[in-house]
Each structure stands twice: as structure tokens, then as C-alpha cells.
């Protein structure tokens, strides 16, 4: 494939801010990057595309000095460089936002943003200035988190915004963002893009990784595609369509995106009926029914309480009032174990903090939730391994060895492992919180396929997602939450972005198309 690699360079007539040539990287015997050439120019947003495990994160870590290449060289503003350490790179204005959150949970927002770069007044740190600056940085991102809040007390999305604010406070020359939007809502993504465009205009070189192809379409100037650790192509963004991108990544054409999931009929059994649930975590009077063999979507703005509701339902947080009925009988899940016994599985959206034991191997992680299944008196390691192998195949888990640590998997493969883990108990009701977070386009339709399979087996699925297209594409009904309440349940034709957003913002149904119309339009505009 020919590429137009040098066109931007020629037209801009500047040196690349950072250039990598002939980069190879191996972890022990496993080679993950092969002879990669890559460059990013000042004032450019360069998207990095590739399947899960293609080597995107590894490449940007090398470029930012967090990993050393096995061979190959780097040039910074034209001059050959070796980053001895990330500190070395950071001092030259190279900043990386990691794929996984890296915040000190016990410290405050402001402390995290300025960690290692404290502003001082004489000997002492200047709290006032740092707080003010943090506020400004967060305001630019339209993030409302308090600068004195403890990071642990914030939502994942807010935490991601803190990461971004932290990176921008570093006055980067080269900014790497490794899937920053995976946990962001469209609204937040929009704020981020505003910021990125501003930085770009200021001459910052930006490398952006995402599996959301429409985002790439919106923001990227050039696109580099990796596949199996190899450089496939670098093209100007305007020259390719989303389908082209997907084809470059996967190496074949991608067909049907969302599978057809039949809508259960109105009289289908109700497997889960939730009424008047309230919690200390902010849920007020939440009620909904889940039918057999349906996908019930949950939509809402960040912080609407979807996660909080589900975590309470499965017994992670106490429910203060309300009842839950499963298959017609009233149930009470005091612990997640109770919910598991009732064959309800929950997939957390925080895979690093709550999903996987990063320091343990893949099999151990895989079997943790369904361990009883492999245990009579002792753990049957053979059965465990066999089940893992089957799941790895089913979920297309790309791992060098089952003995490798979960923390060394690529982000998307971690997500697949997590899915495999929760589905291993063979649940009746499956609650998936951001199931495709960090999953590549190819694998995404695979996962949608699994969901369709589950439903065809008569199981019921709840999907929480900040990607409206995902919710709309999968669900037969959509519950929308706003400030801890379920403000509406949409069915059939009602399931549109506009309608969902009306409920998500607390405006109610659009039957009365009168005075609220303008507001709605703005909100939707802002969010999509």
C-alpha cells in the first residue's frame, strides 16, 4: 500500500516533533512491535488505530519514555534522543495519558493534577494558586468535580478528566492520549476535542488512540494503522472512510455491525422486577422490569446513577427501600454472592480497579468468579484450564500465554478476559456496564454477537453504555436515568437519540413539542 507519509511534512515544512524509526519491542521471547516507523508533527492530531493487542499502547509508551525499545531510534525535533526515563521525556514536554487511570486515590484532585510539578511559593507549596489553576483546567474540560475532592470519591469519567487536566497542566509539546474517551460520555468527549483543537492550534503534536472510529473521523489529521505489531499504513484522515479504517485494522471487510436481536413480546415473563429502590449512593425511587430474552439498555449522562443502581441491585451497596422480584418471588441480595447464586452477573466498568487482579495470571483471573464450578473439594486445574482455553477462543483473547499476568494484556484483551470471567457462571441475568470499553471495532461486533447469543438462549441482558449508538443498536427497550431516578423507559420507535437525551437531561417525553424544544435541541447538539 502506498502512503502519503510525507505530504504533511512537506506542506508544513517543519521537523516532526517526534519521530521513531525501526522500533522493535519484545517482552521476553514475545515480540510485540516489528520495525515501526512513526512520526508526529507539531500542530497535528495523529490517530493511532489498530485491533486490541496491535501494539498501540506499547508504541506510545516507548515514544514517551515509559518503556525502552528493544531496538530502533527516536528523534525529538530532529535530534536523535534516548529517553532514559519518563522524567527525562517529561522534561522535554512529552506527556502521556495512559490507557488505564493513574491517579493517587487518597489524594485530592488538585494534588493529583500537580503531582510532581507542584507550584511553590518559596519553600512551600502554593495551595491557592494550584487550586485556582486546577479549577481553570477542569473548567476548560467542563468538568465540575471539586478540586479538593478525594479522587477515590469521583466517578471514573471525572477521574479520566483529572488525568487529562493533569496532562494539559504539563504544557506538553507532544501529547499522547491512549483511549481517553473510552470512559467518557459524548458530552465529555466533545469538551476534550475542543481542548485538543486548541492545543493543536498552539502547535502541540498530538497522538490520539481510540476505537471509536467516528471520533477519529472528527478529530484526526492523519491516521496510522498497526496490525499485529506491524505498521500497516499512514494516511490522511480525510482520504478514508470508517469502513476503510476498519478494513485496514482488521485486514478484511467488516459486515453487519449490530446483530439482529428479536424483541420479546409484551407478555414475556418478567425475570427481574425492581420497584421503588433507593440507596445511600444517590438512587431515588428506581423501578423497572426486565423481560426474558431481552436487552434492556440503560442510558443517562455521566453520574446519572446507572452504575450505582446496578451495584446496589447485586448487593454491593445496601438498598434502603424498595423491593426486587426475580421470576415473581421477592429476593434480597445482601452480597454479590447472593446475586451470583441467583445467577445474576455484573460486569464492572472499572476493570483495573475492580475487575481484574493485574498481578495474577489469566487463568486465575478467569476462574475467580466461577470458581465453585471447578471445585469439588479441590480445584480441578485441568477443567479450569480447559474452560479458560475454550473461553479464550470464544472471546478471541489474544494472549501470549495463559501464564502471563493480566496486567500485561492489552486493554481490550483485558476487557475480553473480564467478560469471559463474568459470563463463566452461566448467568440468567447479565448486567454489562460499558461492555465494549476499549474494544476494537472487529471485536465489538463479536461481543454484540455474544449478547445476541445470550438472548437467543433465553437470557436477559442489561446494557449500560455511554455510547448511544450501542444502546440503540442493541436494546429492545431503553431505561433512561437522570439524577438517580429512572425518568423513562423507551420502546420501539421511541428509541432515538433525541428522545433518550430528553429523558437523560430530565426534560421528559417529547409529546409536548412546545416550549422545551429549543433547549432539547441544544442539549442534543451538545451531546452528540
Amino acid at each position, binding site marked *: 500500500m502506498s502512503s502519503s507519509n510525507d505530504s504533511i511534512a512537506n506542506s508544513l515544512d517543519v521537523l516532526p516533533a517526534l519521530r521513531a524509526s525501526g522500533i522493535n519491542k519484545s517482552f521476553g521471547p514475545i515480540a510485540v512491535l516489528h520495525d515501526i516507523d512513526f512520526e508526529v508533527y507539531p500542530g497535528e492530531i495523529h490517530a493511532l488505530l489498530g485491533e486490541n493487542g496491535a501494539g498501540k499502547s506499547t508504541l506510545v509508551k516507548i515514544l514517551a519514555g515509559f518503556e525502552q525499545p528493544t531496538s530502533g531510534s527516536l528523534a525529538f525535533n530532529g535530534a536523535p534522543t534516548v529517553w532514559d526515563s519518563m522524567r527525562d521525556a517529561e522534561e522535554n514536554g512529552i506527556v502521556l495519558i495512559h490507557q488505564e487511570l493513574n491517579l493517587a486515590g487518597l489524594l485530592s484532585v488538585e494534588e493529583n493534577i500537580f503531582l510532581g510539578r507542584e507550584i511553590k511559593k518559596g519553600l512551600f507549596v502554593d495551595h491557592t494558586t494550584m487550586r485556582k489553576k486546577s479549577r481553570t483546567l477542569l473548567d476548560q474540560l467542563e468538568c465540575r468535580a471539586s478540586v479538593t475532592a478525594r479522587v477515590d470519591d469521583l466517578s471514573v469519567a471525572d477521574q479520566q478528566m483529572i488525568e487529562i487536566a493533569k496532562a494539559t497542566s504539563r504544557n506538553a509539546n507532544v501529547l499522547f492520549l491512549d483511549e481517553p474517551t473510552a470512559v467518557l460520555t459524548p458530552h465529555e468527549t466533545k469538551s476534550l476535542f475542543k481542548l485538543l483543537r486548541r492545543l493543536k492550534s498552539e502547535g502541540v503534536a498530538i497522538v490520539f488512540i481510540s476505537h471509536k472510529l467516528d471520533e477519529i473521523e472528527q478529530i484526526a489529521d492523519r491516521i496510522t494503522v498497526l496490525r499485529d505489531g506491524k505498521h500497516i499504513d499512514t494516511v490522511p484522515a480525510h482520504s478514508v472512510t470508517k469502513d476503510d479504517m476498519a478494513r485496514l485494522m482488521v485486514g478484511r471487510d467488516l459486515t453487519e455491525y449490530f446483530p439482529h436481536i428479536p424483541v420479546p413480546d409484551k407478555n414475556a415473563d418478567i425475570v427481574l422486577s425492581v420497584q421503588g429502590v433507593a440507596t445511600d449512593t444517590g438512587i431515588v425511587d428506581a423501578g423497572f422490569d426486565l423481560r426474558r430474552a431481552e436487552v434492556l439498555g440503560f442510558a443517562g449522562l455521566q453520574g446519572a446513577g446507572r452504575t450505582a443502581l446496578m451495584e446496589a441491585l447485586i448487593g*454491593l451497596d445496601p438498598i434502603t427501600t424498595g423491593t426486587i422480584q426475580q421470576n415473581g418471588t421477592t429476593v434480597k441480595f445482601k*452480597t*454479590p*454472592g447472593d*446475586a*451470583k447464586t441467583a445467577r445474576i452477573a*455484573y460486569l*464492572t466498568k472499572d476493570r483495573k*480497579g*475492580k*475487575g*481484574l*487482579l*493485574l*498481578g*495474577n495470571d489469566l487463568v*486465575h483471573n478467569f*476462574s*475467580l*468468579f466461577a*470458581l*465453585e464450578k471447578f*471445585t469439588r*473439594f*479441590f*480445584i480441578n486445574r485441568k477443567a479450569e484450564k480447559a474452560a479458560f482455553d475454550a473461553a479464550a477462543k470464544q472471546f478471541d483473547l489474544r494472549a501470549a500465554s495463559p501464564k502471563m499476568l493480566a496486567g500485561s494484556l492489552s486493554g481490550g484483551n483485558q476487557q475480553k478476559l473480564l467478560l469471559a*470471567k463474568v459470563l463463566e457462571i452461566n448467568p440468567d441475568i447479565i448486567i454489562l456496564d460499558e461492555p465494549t470499553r476499549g474494544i476494537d471495532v472487529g471485536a465489538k461486533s463479536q461481543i454484540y454477537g455474544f449478547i445476541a447469543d445470550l438472548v437467543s438462549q433465553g437470557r436477559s441482558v442489561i446494557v449500560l453504555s455511554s455510547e448511544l449508538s450501542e444502546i440503540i443498536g442493541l436494546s429492545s427497550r431503553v431505561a433512561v436515568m437522570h439524577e438517580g431516578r429512572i425518568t423513562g423507559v423507551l420502546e420501539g420507535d421511541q428509541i432515538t437519540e433525541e428522545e433518550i437525551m430528553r429523558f437523560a437531561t430530565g426534560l421528559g417525553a417529547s409529546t409536548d413539542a412546545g416550549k422545551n424544544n429549543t433547549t432539547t435541541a441544544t442539549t442534543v447538539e451538545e451531546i452528540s
Partner: protein
Amino acid sequence: MIINWKAAGPLIALGALLVLGTLINGNFLSTGNMTNILTRSSFIGIIAIGATFVISSGSIDLSVGSMAAFIAGVMIMFMNTLKDLTDLMWLVVLAGVLAGAVLGMFAGWLNGILTTRGKIEAFIVTLGTMGIYRSLVTYLADGGTLSLNSQVRSMYRPVYYGDILGIPFPVIIFAAMAVLGYVVLNHTAYGRHVQSVGANEHVARYSAISTDRVKIIAFMIQGACVAMATIIYVPRLGSASSSTGVLWELEAIAAVIIGGTLLKGGYGRIGGTVAGALILTLIGNILNLTDAISNYLNGAVQGVIIIAAVFLQRGIGKKQK
């Protein structure tokens, strides 16, 4: 050449000490001395097996030494009382042993409950119970020594001094406990759960593991191990006092860490713990077999060897990787 330093560390230290001992004294390798070492290791070893669970689960138990003294004291008082009620000495001993076991598990449960339900750091809870048990045994003994009635003792003696095919009884129990501990930690769901809770409590909770229960059981295993160690300890000298078991907690924890278990939790190695307990006993034994080193410096030698043994696996191991 790749050596698994993690596993080899304690074994190398053990080997080095064996060589050193042989060089220092010809009798070192004698059956008698080896038997002594093994028998002696059993106390700390058995306690350390329990500590492997507690530490793997991310907690720590500082109370084991005092708990042992307290259990020993109660067992002795209980048996002395029973002895006046019945002539069946084996029954007295059996009842005493059972009482010890129950008390140990109860004490462990208490530590566990305070840690989990009370949400107090295990370090503080067990620092507190350490003081409490130490005080109680002093109080029970009226500041002195509680001694087992000699009649009961002669029935009970074989539990320490007896042997099967030449292998002392305490060693057999130690070995059995080690095998049991190994199997539970590595081949049962509970063992996985313990290590998962230690590695990341959130993940464990989200994996439907009842983390409080897992931790409480770990403390109860520790309590049961302390009780078992005490059960073979009591017939040895037939007495308990306020100085019984002083600093055993530090020895047990040291044995566990020397053995390769991570203090921060998430990873436990029973085999290593056994090696760690042997190493600690060996150091003491070797120091007793020589007068090359001033008595005053025993503690320093111990300190250096402990640091060196852990360095062998952590420092070097890490660098290799």
C-alpha cells in the same frame, strides 16, 4: 540461565546455613541435633503456616505470641481442674487439647471480627489483643508460672517427646500442617480467595467473594495454628507464664516473609514458610554451637541473616527479571 530466585532464595539460605553449621561443629549434622532443630522449628513453623494465610490475605497478626501463652495458661488451668474431677487422664488431656483448639479459633475469630466489622487495621487490633492476652496470662498466673499437674503431664508428655518411627511427634504434626496448609492455599477455592482478597479487595468483592468472611477465616486458621503449636508446646515444659511466647509473632512473620510470601498480601508460599522457620531455628542453633561470636552480638547476626535471606529473593530476583 534462569533460576527461579523467588523459590530458590530461602533454599539457598537454608543450604548456606547447613554448610556453615557443619563447618562449625562436627555434631551439627548428627541425628540428635537435626531432630532438635526440626522439633524446635515446629512451634514457630506451625504458627507461621497460619500467618501465611493472614499475610496472604493482606492482614497481619501480632497477637500470636501472647495468644499462645494465654491458650497454654488456660489449657493448664483447665486440665489441672479437670484432673480433680476424673481419674481418666487421657480424658483430661483430650479435653484440654479441645479447649485449646476452641479457644484458639475463638481468639482468631475475635481478631477477624474486630478487623473487618470494626474496620480497624489488623496491626492495631492485634497489637491490642497482644497486650490483652499477655496481661490475662500474667493475671491468671498471678505474675508467676502456671504448671501442669505432674500426673496429667505424664499422660500428655508423648505429644512432645514421643515419636513415630523415630520422627518426633511435633515434627509429624508440623509436616502434616504444612501439607494441609499447602493444599488449602493452593488447591482450594478458599486458598484462591485468600490470595485474591490480599491482591485487591475490590476485585475480590466484585467477584462475589465475601471478603470479610475470607479474612475472618484466615484469622481463625491462624488461631487454630497457634492452638496446635500450643498443644504440642504445653507438654514440653508443662508450664506457661508471662514470658511464654514473647516475640513469637515477629519470628513467625519473619519466617513467612523469608519464605517469599509478600507482606502486602496477594501471594503466599507455604513451602517457603517452612524453609523460613527452619532458617530461623538454624540461626539460633548455630549460634549456640559456637563461641566464635560474642553472645551480645547474636541479635545482630540474626538481623543480618534475615535481611540477607530476603535480599536473596527480592533484590536479586527483581534485578534478574
